[in-house]
C-alpha cells in the first residue's frame, strides 16, 4: 500500500511537471524560453514518471521483476544523459540559425 502511495505521488508529480512543461511550451514568448521549459520540465517529468513505474513494477518482488526495474532505470539513466544533450543541440541549432532572443521592450523603456 505504501508502495502504491509512493508510486502515485511520483507519477503525479511527474504529470504535474509535464503539465508545467506543456504550459511553458505553449505560452512562452520565444524559442529560447520555450526550450528552457521543454528541456528541464521534460527531463524531470520523464525521470519522475519512470521512477514511479519502476517502483510499481517491484510490486511482486522477484528476480525477473527486479531485472525489468533495472531496465526501466536504464531508460531513466539514458534520458538523464541524452535529454540534456539533445536540449543543448537544439538550442545550438537555434543559436546557429540566428534566432533573436525575446526582449520585453516595454520593461526596458520603463
Amino acid at each position, binding site marked *: 500500500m505504501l508502495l502504491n502511495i509512493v508510486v502515485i505521488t511520483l507519477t503525479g508529480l511527474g504529470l504535474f511537471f509535464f503539465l508545467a512543461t506543456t504550459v511553458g511550451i505553449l505560452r512562452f514568448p520565444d524559442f529560447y524560453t520555450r526550450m528552457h521549459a521543454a528541456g528541464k520540465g521534460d527531463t524531470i517529468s520523464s525521470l519522475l514518471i519512470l521512477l514511479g513505474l519502476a517502483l510499481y513494477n517491484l510490486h511482486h518482488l522477484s528476480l525477473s521483476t527486479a531485472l525489468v526495474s533495472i531496465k526501466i532505470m536504464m531508460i531513466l539513466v*539514458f534520458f538523464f*544523459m*541524452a535529454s540534456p*544533450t539533445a536540449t*543543448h*543541440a537544439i538550442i*545550438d541549432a537555434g543559436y*546557429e540559425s540566428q534566432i533573436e532572443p525575446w526582449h520585453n521592450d516595454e520593461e526596458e523603456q520603463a
Partner: protein
Amino acid sequence: MIWSFDLLILLFMVICAFFVIQVKDLLGAAIVFGVYSFLMCLLWTEMGAVDVAFTEAAVGAGVSTVLFIAAVHRSSRQVKPRKRWRRPNKAVGLIAAGLLGGVLFYASVDFPDWADPSSPASTHLSPYFITEALADTSVPNLVTAVLADYRSFDTLFETAVIFVAGMAVFMILGQKTKESAQVGIDLTGGYEDTIIRVVSRALVPFMQIFALYVVGHGHHSPGGGFQGGVLLGATFVLLAISFDLKMVLGRMSEKKNLLLANTGVLLYSGIGVLSLLLGANFLDYSILHTLLPSTGPVVARSHAILGVEIGVAITVMAIIILIYTNLSSGGTNEKGL
C-alpha cells in the same frame, strides 16, 4: 488492444499525416513525419504488435527520419508553389484518392468487427501458429517463430530486399571519384561540438551491446535480427553525425560494408542450402540436428533461427550504414551531416 488509447492515437496520426502533406518546409515535413512514426509505433504496441512496433520504432521513427534529413541536407528544403500548367495533377490525385477511399469504404462494411476473436483471420491459420509454434520450434516469441521458420522464405527475400535497396542506393549515388560531385556544400560552419561528441562516445558502446542483446534475445522478447541490425546501424549513424563520416568510414569502410551485406544474405541462404544438401527441403532447419551434437530437430530449429537472425542483422546493419553514408554525402563519402 486498449481502445481509448487507440482512438486517441489514430486521431493524432490523421492530424500528423495531414500536416506532413501541408507543411511548406521539407525539413519540417520530415520532423512531423518522424512524430507520425512515433505515434504509429505506439499504436502498434497498443494493439499488441510489439515486434512490428519495435521495427517501426527502429525504422520509421529512427532511420527513415534520419534518411529524410540527410536527403534534405544534400538537396533543397524549399517547396515552391506549383506552376499553373501542372494543376491537373491535383485533380487526378483527388479523383484517385476519392475512388480508392470509396472502394475501400465499400469493402469495410463487410469486414468482421474490429478485434473480434471469432473473425476468420483469427480462427483459420493463426490458432495453429499460436498453439503449436512453441512445440515445433521451442521459440516462445511466436512472431520470431513464424517469421524465421514457417515463413522463412519470405524473410530470406525480405533480407534480399534490403540488400537490393542498399546496392541500388550505392549504384545510383556511389561515385568513385570525388570531383564528380556536382554540388558543393558550405561546410566551413560545422564546428566540433564537444558535448555531443562526449555523450555519443559514452553512449554508443552501450547502445551496441543493447543492439546485440536485441538480436540474440529475439527468441524470448520482441526483437530479432532486423531490429537489432537497424539499432547497430543507427549507432554508426550517430557516430557519423556527432563526429564525421570519415571517422565511421575509417572503422567501417565502404568495401567492408558491401562485404558484410553480402555475408549476411549468404549466411541466411547458406543455412537454407545446408539443409538442402543434407537432403531436406530448402530452409527446413530440422535436418540440421545431424550436424549439431546432442540436439533434437526442435532445438536445431531454434538454433538455426538464431543463425538466420544473425545473418539478417549483419546485412541490415551494413546496408543502413551504406545508405546513410551515401545519402548524406551525395555518394562521395566526403562529409556527411
